[in-house]
């Protein structure tokens, strides 16, 4: 578990000054199929994507765009263009399952632990300090895309 002391001085100062927006009022989806019958997707903020997609950009307030990642993406085929230096990206570049566990989900589907792996997954970059366009535009767009795909459960992997 990382703690504040793991952050650089610059990142600690940012943490203490930034007004984090709580999820309020808290939405709560109570019902849905149990995991063995659920279609599962992953949404990460690791800033990974296919090499054919445009990179995430280092822009003021943070790049609020996203990239879809197909379920059949083979190991070793993603690139990471997350601009923040606050975290160690060696894990996600060595093994994409560290942030996007598609191979583990596929095994769990074969073992009957989940119903299905969703056809597509989504990647954002984190470190978005001006989140209004994320909140109003791209997060609802991804939510709608996942709903259109019949997704029942989403695992989110912040880095």
């Amino acid at each position, binding site marked *: *578990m*990382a*703690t*504040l002391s*793991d952050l650089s001085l610059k990142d600690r100062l940012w*943490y203490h000054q930034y007004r*984090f*927006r*709580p*999820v*309020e009022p*808290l*939405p*709560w*989806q*109570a019902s*849905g199929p149990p*995991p063995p019958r*659920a279609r*599962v997707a992953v*949404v*990460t*903020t*690791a800033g990974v994507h296919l090499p054919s997609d445009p990179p995430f950009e280092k822009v003021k307030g943070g790049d609020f765009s996203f990239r879809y990642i197909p379920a059949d993406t083979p190991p070793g085929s993603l690139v990471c263009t997350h601009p923040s230096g*606050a*975290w*160690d*990206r*060696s*894990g*996600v570049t*060595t*093994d994409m*399952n*560290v*942030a996007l*566990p598609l191979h*583990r989900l596929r*095994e*769990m589907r074969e073992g009957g*632990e989940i119903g299905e792996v969703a056809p597509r997954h989504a990647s*954002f970059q984190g470190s978005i300090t001006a*989140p209004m366009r994320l*909140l109003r535009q791209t*997060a*609802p767009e*991804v*939510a*709608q895309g*996942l*709903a259109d795909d019949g*997704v*029942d*459960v*989403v*695992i*989110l*992997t*912040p*880095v």
Partner: protein
Amino acid sequence: MGLIAGAIEERGIRTVCLSTFEPIMERVRPPRWLSLPFPMGFPLGLPHEAGTQRRILRQALRMVEAPGPGPVRVAFEPERDPS
């Protein structure tokens, strides 16, 4: 990440965040989060540790059956499930 979880849950899909940095989760408070003993950048642990990755996913998936209201926080138990 918490805000994205909120938007997805709002759309009627259950969400579980994997957390390696508790200070932010405590401030953002998404619907459900699993607290993990790993450094930032490693939400499913060290590379190529498939057993740990499966245990994390199993415990996260179990959380969608927890009764509300949220937010619901659970600490990862490394020895709880078979790999």
